[in-house]
């Protein structure tokens, strides 16, 4: 059958087009059946295994008890913002999240939960330390519920300090440097395992700078005033330069990420580090002998006083939720003291409600005691600057640490570095004014 077949028949064209069409059809997804039970999408904060598992397990049990269809996702804190960004843009948001409370609040993404705040305050003896300050907005409303306080504390090798004839804790930053110089034995051990990099662990330097009396913006958090604090900044820079030149910082701190101070301390190579209690929890599981030699203290003081910044863990509900009552119930049940007792014994948080102060864990684990100390004496992150969008942006961009890097990595003069820092801060704050 010699039918000239150089030219396509109708059949052939349809065949090739149908290939395209069926490929597209195969990729489309049938609409899900309408759920009988309410569905709760919960993004669980992932940071420390035991703590994460405790929260996840509670959520699963709660869902079973309350006949809720739970979709649980573990989200590491570092990946949270890209994920929630994409989810909001695509209008496919979760119901409950455990990160980004203040950021999302500032963008009006959260559901009002003032009722839960007030209920907890009444039922559980009031909020601890700066918790209320962190949660309450100027108009008295609350959009995120704290469930734990955390902060960087001073973690120290008490044994090495004792060997050097020193009695911890160092009271001031200057004392810290002196202790570090005396107790270290490089290259086996370095005095202070502290990052001076573009990662947020480097923010300790901003806290130190503030304890020397400097601040970035005014009380309203709108106008940059650092330029008025040049003498205090210079005093701080004197201190920093001394630290840098003393050789107490291990090599590589200029590109340390947030894990390096942990691993440096955990492998016994640092005398002092600043970190949340996650190091101690790791040591508890992996190296109890080292934990036994470790002391936990709050920050040393600066010339102008103590700046002990606190961060927090909180739960929020996205305002787009289709199950607000279920979500609120979940938040409320999550605050129940019995449940919190079990959780906090494996977690890294300090107590947010007075009802939690009586837990055993504070007594059983010595390192938890400093958590309480910190929770009571601490201030919200950024203090005395206002914790707002502008401060947060300059903080995640490690502005102060970059100034320090300009001086010691790029050999800029102080004036040049300071001018650039002022410029950057002004530009950032101007965006949010």
């Amino acid at each position, binding site marked *: *059958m*010699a*039918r000239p*077949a*150089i*030219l*396509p*028949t109708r059949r*052939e064209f349809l*065949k*090739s087009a149908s*290939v395209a069409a069926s*490929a597209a059809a195969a*990729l*489309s*997804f049938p*609409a*899900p059946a309408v759920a009988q039970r309410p569905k709760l999408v919960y*993004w669980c904060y*992932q*940071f*420390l*295994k035991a703590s*994460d598992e405790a929260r996840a397990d509670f959520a699963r049990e709660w869902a079973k008890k309350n006949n809720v269809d739970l*979709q*649980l*996702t*573990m*989200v*590491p*804190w570092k*990946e949270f913002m*890209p*994920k929630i*960004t*994409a*989810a909001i*843009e*695509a*209008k*496919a948001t979760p119901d409950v999240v455990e990160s980004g409370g203040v950021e999302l609040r500032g963008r009006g993404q959260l559901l009002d939960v003032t009722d839960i705040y007030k209920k907890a305050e009444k039922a559980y003896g009031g909020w601890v330390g700066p918790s209320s300050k962190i949660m309450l907005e100027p108009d008295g409303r609350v959009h995120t519920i704290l469930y734990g306080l955390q902060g960087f504390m001073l973690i120290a090798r008490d044994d090495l300090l004792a060997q050097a004839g020193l009695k911890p804790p160092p009271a001031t930053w200057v004392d810290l440097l002196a202790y570090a110089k005396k107790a270290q034995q490089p290259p086996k051990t370095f005095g202070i395992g502290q990052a001076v990099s573009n990662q947020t*662990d480097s923010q300790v330097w901003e806290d130190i700078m503030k304890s020397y009396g400097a601040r970035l913006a005014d009380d309203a958090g709108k106008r940059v005033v650092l330029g008025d604090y040049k003498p205090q900044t210079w005093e701080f820079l004197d201190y920093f330069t001394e630290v840098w030149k003393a050789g107490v910082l291990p090599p590589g701190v200029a590109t340390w990420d*947030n*894990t390096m*101070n*942990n*691993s440096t301390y*955990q*492998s*016994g190579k640092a005398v002092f580090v600043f*970190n949340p209690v*996650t190091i101690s929890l*790791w040591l508890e599981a*992996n190296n109890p002998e080292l934990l036994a030699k470790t002391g936990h203290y709050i920050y040393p003081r600066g010339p102008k006083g103590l700046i002990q910044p606190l961060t927090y863990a909180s739960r929020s509900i996205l305002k787009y939720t289709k199950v607000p009552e279920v979500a609120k119930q979940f938040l409320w049940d999550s605050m129940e003291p019995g449940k919190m007792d079990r959780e906090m014994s494996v977690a890294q948080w300090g107590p947010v409600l007075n009802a939690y102060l009586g837990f055993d864990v504070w007594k059983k684990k010595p390192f938890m005691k400093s958590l309480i100390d910190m929770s009571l004496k601490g201030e919200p992150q950024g203090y005395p600057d206002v914790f707002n969008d502008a401060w947060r942006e300059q903080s995640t961009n490690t502005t102060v640490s970059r100034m320090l890097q300009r001086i010691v990595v790029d050999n800029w003069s102080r004036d040049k570095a300071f001018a650039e820092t002022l410029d950057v801060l002004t530009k950032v704050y101007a965006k949010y004014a």
Partner: protein
Amino acid sequence: MREPLSIRVTIYALLALFVLMVAVPLFWMVTTALKTNKDLYEDFSYLPTRPTLEHFVRVIQREDLLTNIRNSLAVASTTTAVTVVVSAFAAFSIVRYKYRGREWIGRFILFKYLLPTAMLFVPLYAIVVAMGLGNTLKSLMLTYLSFTVPFCTWMLMGYFRSIPPELEEHAMVDGCTKIGALFRILLPLSAPGLVASAIFSFTLAWNEFLLALVFTSDQTTMTVPIKLSMMVAGDQYIWGQLMAGAVLASLPIAILYFLGQRFVVQGLAAGSVKG
């Protein structure tokens, strides 16, 4: 013709140098996976003092990495299959048909790679969710096509061009349809090119990071690179487990390349001469 000794020595010396260059980091990866934590963090040693499989066991049992490997395999295989089919059709269309505009697509298809994923992933995610594919492996299978198809199409274009069209025309005279000629003549002759496309596509899909990070949320959908990055949870590195996971993540690809390397070379060969 016999090579002079000096040339042979040079060649083998260079070969040894290159092999060493590739081997050292791989050696480091494998030995780290086999070292105890003490060897890793406290007392440095080049080789494991007491080789242990504990990291591998942990990573398979506690982290359930095999599920993620299965996810990656599913995504990579499907992406590859669809890519090869779509690219073969497209290349055939551009090279063997005549219609307006085909030259332009052929010329500019590679321009896709000017656009980084960091710029495109937010709108891509919106599309994926609009199609109801949020947190599914299908979302990856679809979006990965955007970077596998252009390159494979280009490569197959070159490959098809190197095969004389007379063979298909001869068959069509004998009663075969044009598409029939594609399946009966051109594709079998292009086997090396098709295998090469498949391997490239598989590699790109297997290794992709950013889209998988945003599109997948849990263990049922996470691919291996994402799972590995999740293992760097919080502020703790677990090098032993990470490297064990890295070894497991690299094995399927390594095997694939050892088996298919010949085809990749052949596949690129014809495509690269004229193009």
